[in-house]
Structure formats: C-alpha cells, structure tokens
C-alpha cells in the first residue's frame, strides 16, 4: 500500500527535474498565474501549466464559449492566447517572481511549428521547468487533436519537440481515441519524458428552445467531475503499458480524488475545473502539505 498522504507531500521528478510536490494547476484553468496569485499562494504549488500557447496570437472562438452541464463544464475557448513571444516577454517575468515550476503548454498547426515553438522557448525563455505538448485540444481546426489521435503523428511531433527542447517534454494526451495506450506508447517512442492525461472529452449541449448548440462553436470539451472516471480508467490503462511518469488530470474536486488518481497509477496530478468551483478546497489541500 502506498502512503497516499506522504505521496501528496513528496517531491516528484521527471528525469532530473524535481517538482516540490505533485499538485499542479492544469493548462487553461489558471491563465498565466496573474489572476490566481491574488487568491492563491503560487509558491505552494508543485507546478503551473500555462494557458495553451501558439506561435502567433489567437483570437479564439466566438462566444458563448462556456456551458455548464451536470458535474462539468463544456468549453470551446479556441486557444485564445497572445502568442509565444508575448508569453515569454510579457507573462513569464511575472511568474519568475515565484518559485513555482512553470510548464509551458503549447500547440502548433504543423509538426514544424511544434518544433519551432520548442526552439523559441529553448532560446528565449528562462526558468522553464518543462514543456507540455498539447496534442489534444478539441477546439481548434488545425493542430491539437488532429495530431493527438494518430499514433504516427504523435510520435513524430513529440520527437521533433524533443530535438528542440532543453527541458523535459510532457505529452498531453486526448481521451478522444479508441485506445489511449497506443497513443501513450507512440509518445514514449517519440521520446516523451512524461505523459499528462486526460485533456477534455468532446461533447455537445443543445438549447431546446432555439434547437441550436449552446456553444457558438457547436462542439466543445467537457471537464469537471463528470469526466473523472474516464480519466481514472485511462491513467490506469496507461500505467499498465509504460513506466514514464504520469500526471493525472480530470475532474479532481477533493483530496480523495487526488488519492484516487494515485491509486490508478498517477505520479502527480493537475487540478483544473475545481479551481473555478471552489478555490478554498485547493487552498486547504496546499496548506496541509
């Protein structure tokens, strides 16, 4: 039996990079840290995964972008972000005031673009703990999910990023596949240093008055406690086929939920939608470790 409380307090490492504890914030649910720093001590976190970034700035999808569904949120933000150069020049200086390990999450439209972003980060960004390669965003037409569902593309994209990176590379996997172990193995073959899973589950909601989708983009990504059993199952399956560190993500809302991910085989976790539901819960967990 693993001492779950002890594991919650223990440092976690990917290769030679050590993270002070296994509780990270998930990309897309903490922006670039500026707003959350007002109500959360960022230094208590094991890591912070920044909002998904692209080479050029992206305006994102038209609103409405958010719909609440039972125990979850459907979103279709569409990777609104200021672009990698602005993230490095305007967002990182703020985060560098803290000791929290920073993980840059990014995606590209092409394999080359993934490589180029990794190269820019290696050359220009300081104090980055790891890269999280988003091959799983359901809300953009090009890149993201289109790479993440094909094992050959996953392997190639991760290999290209690895060649251009000077910090550990984490592959963030999508649940929107038939067999996640195939994708996990492909990422490992490409040289991934760790795996994070899962990204959101694609979903839809209709307004029965207008008979139209509630999200302007139609399809969105479901997060929150609704997807936790799916995430737990996938972490469990991936644990059976790899020894890489696994960072579990999906609907964590209590400390017990973190423990459940540990039981399934996760080495660390990312907290996402819970930050919106009740930041007090997260604060209490961080205070206790």
């Amino acid at each position, binding site marked *: 039996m693993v001492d779950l409380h002890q594991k919650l307090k223990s440092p976690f490492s990917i290769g030679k990079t050590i993270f002070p504890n296994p509780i990270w914030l998930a990309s*897309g*649910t*903490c*922006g670039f840290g*500026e*707003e*959350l720093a*007002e*109500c959360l001590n960022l230094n208590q976190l094991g890591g912070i995964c920044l*909002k998904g970034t692209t080479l050029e700035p992206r*305006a*994102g999808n*038209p*609103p*409405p*972008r*958010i*719909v*609440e569904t*039972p*125990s979850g*949120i459907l*979103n279709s*933000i569409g990777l*609104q972000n200021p672009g990698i150069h602005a993230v490095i020049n305007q967002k990182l200086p703020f985060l560098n005031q803290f000791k929290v390990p920073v993980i840059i999450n990014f995606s590209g439209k092409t394999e080359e673009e993934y490589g180029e972003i990794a190269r820019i980060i290696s050359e220009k960004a300081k104090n980055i703990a790891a890269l999280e390669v988003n091959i799983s965003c359901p809300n953009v037409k090009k890149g993201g999910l289109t790479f993440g569902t094909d094992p050959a593309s996953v392997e190639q994209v991760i290999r290209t990023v690895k060649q251009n990176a000077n910090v550990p590379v984490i592959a963030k996997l999508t649940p929107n596949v038939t067999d996640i172990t195939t994708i996990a193995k492909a990422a490992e073959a490409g040289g991934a240093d760790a795996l994070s899973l899962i990204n959101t589950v694609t979903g839809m909601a209709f307004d029965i008055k207008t008979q139209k989708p509630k999200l302007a983009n139609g399809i969105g990504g479901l997060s929150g*406690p609704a997807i936790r059993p799916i995430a737990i199952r996938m972490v469990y399956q991936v644990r059976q086929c790899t020894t890489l560190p696994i960072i579990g993500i999906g609907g964590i*809302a209590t400390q017990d939920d973190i423990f459940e991910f540990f039981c399934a085989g996760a080495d660390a976790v990312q907290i996402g*939608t819970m*930050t*919106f*539901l*009740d*930041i*007090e819960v997260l604060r209490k967990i961080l205070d206790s470790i």
Partner: protein
Amino acid sequence: MLTFEAPLDLTTVNPCQFLTISLPDISPPFIKKPFSIYHFDPKTRIISIIYRVIGKGTANFSRQTKDKRVTVLAPLGNGIKPSELPPGKLAFVAGGIGIASLNLISQHISEFDLYYGARTQTEFIDLPSWNNRAMRVFLSTDDHSVGHPGVITEVLKLDQYTGLIACGPHIMLKKVSELCKKIDLPHWVILEEYMACGMGVCMGCVVNTTSGYQRVCKEGPVFNGTDIIW
C-alpha cells in the same frame, strides 16, 4: 434578495462590480454564478444581491436561512467610477434584473431619469426607492400590466441627456446602443455572460469589441457601448 456579511478584508466596492457565489450544501458542485452587487455598506459590511430563481442554484438561495456560510469571490470586474461619467443629467436604462447593477452607481448621481422595463408589474424591484431618487421613472411591461405596453427602448427620448448607462438583456442593450450612437450620446453598458471562473483566468466570458475579444469578468462588465461589436 440575498444578504450576507462580507469578510473583513472587503472594504470597497466600485459601482457595477460583481461577485460570484456558491453554496456549500449543493451537490453536484456548481460553478460559482455571477451577480451584481446591489448594495454594499462598508461600515456594516453587509452586501446584497438580487436574484431571480431560474435554476437549481438560485432555487437553493431561496431556501437559505440565517447564519449559513456561503463562498463568495468579491469584488470582481472593473466597475465604474462616478467621475468617469459626464456631468449633467443621465439616463439609466434597466431591463428586468439588470436594475441590480444600477443601484450603487445611482447613489452617486444627483440627476437621472430611470427607464425600467420588466415582463410584468410584479417583477419591478424597489420601485418606491427609485421613485424617490430618480427625477422621473418610466416603466414598461411585456404583458402590458403597467407603464408602456411593450419594451423600454420604445420609450427612450435620449436628446435630453449627457450620457446613458444600461443593464439588461443583450437585445435591449444592443438597441439602446444603436439609439445612442445615432445621436453620439456617450453610453456605458453592463454586460452579462456565462462565466466559469469570474476572475479572468478561463477566457470563457468574452465579448467581441473593436479591440478584439475582451473578458466580461475582467475588462468588463462595464464597457463603453461604442466599443462593443453587437
């Protein structure tokens, strides 16, 4: 109305700022919902919001009893400072529950008329108080039960004002903004949008503006009406 005591560190609230609220005994967990801060007394730290029972969350509000604890994030959004508004007589335009956003700012304005539309006469909130404070109050109801039969934008006579501030349904705000733009009347709109975080993190509540998508919860909820791409 839901009234509660704010924690000690809440000392100031700008008019038109909002808060998000969640209740501890609701399951499954809900995302915190945004509400305009209707009233805030810095001395007693009593804060109130106005809500209409729409879903499970607001139905739960109406079952709350004294001494319950609620989780609140406040104050949120940019609000509006009275000094940002032009001197002279202003028009306030409220649709339904949108009246809640206009209460705090009205306390700083000596000369204003209120245009207030609702679905039916029983939905008007605090009318005696508004009758005292506003120079004139114009009402409209969708069901013709009181005031102008129809929508409030049909009643507006805007050439007598130096500025306008409005809160209500999107369709009303759009019409108000069109009317203001015709006569170059400075106007501010207080927007509502679905929100997940309420504090600028998730990028979920954006509105399209002349300078791109802006967050209603952070850059808003008050926007210059001419900046919005309706």
